[in-house]
């Protein structure tokens, strides 16, 4: 069904670039933005969206497209140019063979891992709140695979796949979910609180919007290190992942303001999957086009098809490059969809099955597979080998987690403080201020 999912032309205005389409023929499948679908297929709201009138003809729809091209100065122009130059994707693939396999492997890892989580949850090995990422893999893979180890990722409670993409071993994540002591946080964090200092994954936050200021702070540190502490090569970028519901939260706007004001090296990635538990994005937001909120604060806002990992990767390259060069933040809205409910406890009754089917046909993994076959980037056998490898990896992770011990009882009271005695008491138990050698004056005032 997704015939030309990765054709370069689809990113912006397909009618101008794809000359084979006649004006009157409707597109092969609905346009990439939900607002442009025919009004009869509703997006979870019984209210018809006033933007597209019920009797919109295809021509009117196409006419509207130019006006809603992303109001981006930097990113979309560059990408548009690139795309228009390579309007025949077959002759100029966007990725190499190795990159393609890497992306494929990462997405399959995310998908298999999450499917295994669901199984384990229903078997009682995992408990509490578990939020799965199926369907959104393109966003995580598209962005995080472009980062260095020192770059930071801050996420929400839907953070398993962000952790995996950033490099946290599957075994560590699975053990953490089982609540075992070999988990990445020794079982003390859980599904919603994945932290890894080594891989610079700064969490895992349960409150939506809570991670955005923390990500802004990490970006602030990067800039501070470069400018005040004079670590000249510190160009670390931070990515903040959050959802459509978060974009109505005050902290989001506060951070857009500060990031643009101080030109912080951060990319705000909105994973707009249209649903906040059971609340449709369209019911909750006065202006549903989130990318527009970027220019209001003085930063570029981009909208990208989040079911297409290559498009996400192109936009990500540009946004991360901007941040690394010190040009400031970018707001990227990725239109994506979660195939499962909000969490494993969510019966997911409010979403229209037709909508789910539509997005299932745009599965990012199948789409990448198709692209790679069409462009002769990989053979069937290679991809099957990767599938097998990932299956074994995930099985191994489950076995490892199963066999790992539960935390010891003494772990309950550990790690509340980094220094439980407090600074004023030295390691020998005596007060530092009473040690005559201590008051030797370290500050030049």
């Amino acid at each position, binding site marked *: 069904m997704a015939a030309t999912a990765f054709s370069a032309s689809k990113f912006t205005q397909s009618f101008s670039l794809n000359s084979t389409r006649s004006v009157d023929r409707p597109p092969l499948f609905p346009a990439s933005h939900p607002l442009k679908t025919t009004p009869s297929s509703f997006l979870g709201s019984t209210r018809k969206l006033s933007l597209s009138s019920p009797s919109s003809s295809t021509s009117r729809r196409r006419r509207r497209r130019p006006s809603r091209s992303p109001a981006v100065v930097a990113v979309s122009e560059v990408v548009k140019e690139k795309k228009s130059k390579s309007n025949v994707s077959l002759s100029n693939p966007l990725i190499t063979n190795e990159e393609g396999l890497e992306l494929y492997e990462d997405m399959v890892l995310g998908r298999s891992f999450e499917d295994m989580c669901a199984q384990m949850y229903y078997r009682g090995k995992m408990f509490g709140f578990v939020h799965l990422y199926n369907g959104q893999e393109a966003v995580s893979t598209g962005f995080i695979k472009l980062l260095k180890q020192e770059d930071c990722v801050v996420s929400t409670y839907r953070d398993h796949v962000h952790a995996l993409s950033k490099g946290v071993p599957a075994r560590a994540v699975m053990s953490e979910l089982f609540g075992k002591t070999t988990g990445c946080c020794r079982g003390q964090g859980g599904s919603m609180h994945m932290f890894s200092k080594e891989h610079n994954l700064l969490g895992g936050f349960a409150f939506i919007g809570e991670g955005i200021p923390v990500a802004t702070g*990490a970006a602030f540190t990067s800039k501070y290190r470069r400018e005040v502490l004079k670590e000249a090569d510190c160009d670390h970028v931070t990515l903040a992942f959050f959802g459509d519901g978060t974009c109505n939260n005050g902290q989001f706007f506060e951070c857009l303001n500060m990031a643009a004001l101080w030109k912080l090296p951060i990319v705000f990635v909105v994973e707009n999957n249209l649903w906040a538990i059971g609340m449709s994005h369209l019911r909750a937001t006065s202006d549903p086009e989130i990318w527009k909120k970027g220019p209001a604060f003085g930063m570029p806002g981009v909208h990208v098809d989040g079911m297409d990992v290559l498009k996400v990767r192109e936009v990500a390259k540009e946004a991360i490059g901007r941040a690394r060069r010190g040009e400031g933040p970018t707001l990227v809205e990725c239109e994506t969809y979660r195939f499962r409910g909000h969490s494993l406890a969510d019966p997911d009754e409010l979403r229209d099955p037709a909508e789910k089917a539509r997005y299932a046909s745009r599965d990012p993994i199948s789409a990448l597979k198709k692209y790679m076959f069409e462009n002769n980037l990989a053979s069937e056998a290679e991809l099957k080998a990767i599938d097998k490898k990932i299956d074994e990896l995930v099985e191994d992770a489950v076995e490892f987690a199963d066999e790992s011990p539960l935390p010891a009882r003494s772990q309950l009271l550990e790690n509340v403080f980094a220094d439980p005695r407090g*600074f004023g008491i030295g390691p020998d138990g005596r007060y530092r201020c009473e040690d005559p050698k201590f008051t030797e004056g370290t500050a030049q005032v």
Partner: protein
Amino acid sequence: MSAILRKIIAPGGIPAWGIRVIASRTYSSSAGGKEMTVRDALNSALDEEMSADPSVLLMGEEVGEYQGAYKVSKGLLDKYGPKRVIDTPITEAGFTGMAVGAAYHGLRPVVEFMTFNFSMQAIDHIINSAAKSNYMSSGQISVPIVFRGPNGAAAGVGAQHSQCYAAWYASCPGLKVLVPYNSEDARGLLKAAIRDPDPVVFLENELLYGESFPISAEALDSSFCLPIGKAKIEREGKDVTIVAFSKMVGYALQAAEILAKEGVSAEVINLRSIRPLDRATINTSVRKTNRLVTVEEGFPQHGVGAEICASIVEESFEYLDAPVERITGADVPMPYAANLERMAVPQVEDIVRAAKRTCYRSVPVAVNA
């Protein structure tokens, strides 16, 4: 929210009640004889810590060009520049979270809240992002951050600017809560807080900023810091223990003077640190005097006094000769009228009366406020 404060502080930058300007700070070689205001003590502590460690930075509203809403950060912008003394927009949740994120990554921010009442807008970050992180990440991510600012009632600022947050923050594991009283406390505790690798909530008091206290040469040394979690016995006594923190220590000392003239010898303990609470010192003192009065400005229910009372009952029950007396602020939002405000906050007479009650001196009315 800061509109009321702006009215009090004239555009010229000099608050209505005046500030004591210390033109030059001379370090005298002889001990004693020097006095320092709490404001200058805090300023000097910040100055020294920022000078010693380049990863310490100060951020908050009006800390830079305005020289600090209460002039605590006076002169720091000129010395350290706008990249280390950062004037933020009015976004408590945003900049507190940002500071926590910076602390995750190795910087040592000092976040100033114009008053701790505004910290309620950022309390999610103080508790969920800062206090709980070391535990949730199992020791991987420590948060060396300090949240400081004036706490408790000032003079006539109304209900939304007068709440005391000691009890709220002290109930949360993962935070250290410090409450300095005099200049030595202010210097020593702030320096310890900045160097501490954990989140510290540093509750100052606006009315104490301008008060001058004697300060020793050791306290003026740039490495001076006080231990966190140890209370100080400000005045020794043998009849009744009065436990207080922040401004109430001053009131307790005055009450002790009055009681001494009537033959009651009061021991005054300056808590200095509410979390961790120095239960050992309080219990030892109560076992000596057998009577306890706790004094605090905050609301009575679930307050600091309640925790101290529980601790005494659990550990020194047989030593008590009289029920523990709790003196707290009135159980109402702070009124504005001056006479009502005076009734809503503990006064010296309340402390004297309570101490006498524990000593079975006859007092006709047991005041509830």
